[in-house]
């Protein structure tokens, strides 16, 4: 069913009794051209672009839980392309361009809202760093504006500008950044892939990866063995565990990141705002809750929940930025599993096993990358070689020294 104003009106007149399920309950076939392991945002986007761009439709997406139940349903919904380094900037900008056309592309309302992302700076050195970042962005055709203190004040007068320790001196603004309704991204890609013939198989954990003579032959699943010409892994958070089924050891640690939402209030925060003196980012959902987050907890975890010291730290950063949120009650907090890579950048590449492809290492920036990640991973799988946009996200870059370390902190995953 194509969604349109007409379909909305006709369904309204029928008392909303005619809506159909958004995707089929597909039966697992014995063999596929391509199997994508992981039915999250990146896996579903990969399946969609495999079908749409490359015409490969004999594809299954295998998901151990339910579609979109992992990090695509657990993030703070921010999209932006304000990256500094050459390997990153064009990739994330392509993602932003895909976000801009996403809803028309999918015929699905993902509530893409380009409300602007404002990164605050609090010192002369930080202003210089942001000016450099903004210049790098503009050289790559990305929008960036360096704002002084008064321009920021006109935009967000309620911040603590005269904070004794971290006075706000200005900010770097990307107006095309913003937020997207995260679940709708998973559902929209799932629907688009399903309509093009992709089988979406839920509750189907992959328990083994079969390799013969250095070539992939298929995967063992909770529903039996499935033969496959190619297999793509898109299961960030659990990449190490799934790749270990094929005997691969990855440059990744799994860490827990917590996110938070306050009780709903009237429209207050009209942009995405980040605090430059700590790690804190905040936006407001359309339901009115303030959605915010900060650092990862900092230790290996598969527990899907974090600890209280991090919650305290995030809330302290929030209070330093906008003291008025101290009167708000925290409604919920939750955790997600992050593939923390050794340089803070992702991996979209072939593996040493012929026919096995890896999409991993998204740290806690995977959501904004969803469209470009799927697009580039589909290209890499279909053509058996990376696209220019993901050519830098190689698995062997740690051996060759071509690291992409935006923060410059080295091989210490909990610091990225």
């Amino acid at each position, binding site marked *: 069913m194509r969604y349109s104003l007409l379909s909305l009106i006709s369904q309204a007149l029928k008392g909303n009794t005619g809506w159909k399920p958004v995707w089929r309950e597909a039966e697992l076939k014995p063999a596929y051209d391509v199997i994508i392991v992981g039915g999250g945002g990146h896996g579903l986007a990969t399946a969609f672009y495999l079908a749409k761009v490359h015409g490969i439709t004999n594809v299954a997406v295998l998901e151990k839980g339910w579609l979109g139940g992992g990090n695509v349903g657990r993030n703070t919904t921010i999209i932006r392309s304000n990256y500094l380094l050459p390997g990153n900037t064009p990739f994330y900008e392509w993602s932003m361009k895909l976000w801009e056309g996403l809803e028309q592309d999918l015929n699905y309302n993902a509530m893409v809202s380009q409300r602007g992302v404002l990164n605050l700076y609090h010192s002369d050195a930080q202003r210089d760093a942001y000016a450099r970042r903004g210049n790098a962005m503009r050289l790559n055709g990305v929008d960036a504006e360096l704002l002084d203190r008064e321009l920021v004040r006109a935009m967000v007068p309620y911040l603590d500008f005269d904070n004794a320790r971290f006075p706000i001196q200005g900010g770097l603004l990307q107006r095309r950044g913003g937020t997207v309704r995260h679940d709708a991204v998973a559902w929209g890609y799932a629907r688009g892939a399903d309509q093009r013939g992709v089988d979406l198989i839920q509750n189907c954990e992959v328990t083994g990866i079969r390799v013969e003579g250095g070539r992939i032959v298929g995967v063992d699943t909770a529903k039996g063995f499935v033969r496959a010409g190619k297999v793509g892994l898109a299961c960030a958070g659990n990449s190490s*565990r799934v790749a270990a089924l094929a005997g691969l050891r990855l*440059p990744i640690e799994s860490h827990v990141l917590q996110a938070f939402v306050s009780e709903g209030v009237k429209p207050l925060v009209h942009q995405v705002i980040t605090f430059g003196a700590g790690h804190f980012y905040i936006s407001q959902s359309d339901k009115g809750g303030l959605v915010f987050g900060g650092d990862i907890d900092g230790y290996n975890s598969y*527990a899907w929940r974090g*600890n209280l010291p991090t919650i305290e730290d995030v809330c302290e950063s929030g209070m330093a930025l906008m003291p008025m949120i101290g009167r708000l009650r925290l409604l919920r907090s939750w955790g997600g599993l992050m593939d923390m890579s050794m340089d803070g950048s992702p991996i979209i590449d072939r593996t040493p096993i012929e026919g096995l492809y890896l999409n991993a290492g998204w740290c806690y920036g995977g959501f904004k990358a969803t469209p470009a990640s799927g697009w580039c991973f589909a290209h890499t799988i279909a053509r058996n070689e990376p696209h220019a946009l993901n050519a830098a996200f190689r698995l062997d870059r740690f051996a060759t020294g071509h690291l992409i370390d935006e923060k410059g902190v080295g091989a210490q995953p909990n610091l990225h």
Partner: protein
Amino acid sequence: MRIDCCHCGPRGNEEFVYLGDATLERPPADPAAPLDEEARTRWHDYVYLRDNPAGPHRELWQHVSGCRAWLVVTRDTRTHAILKVESARDVALARAVFGS
């Protein structure tokens, strides 16, 4: 999460900082040895590759807001349950004497 420091007793995890996997073996740093393919692979694996298990994980923590000692903590990454805490010094000495 509370870590039972061998020197200070149980303390909240905010008193500790985390380094990571305690089972990694640092290749011998012999300046005279050639940096051949095998040595490069060993260093690459040591610096960049991790087992990253879901389950018991031996890892290094430092009690920075306490005794400042390094600890080897065995912790279940699925539940955050702490199974064992040892002094990193004792672990290193045992490894030196008895091998890992």
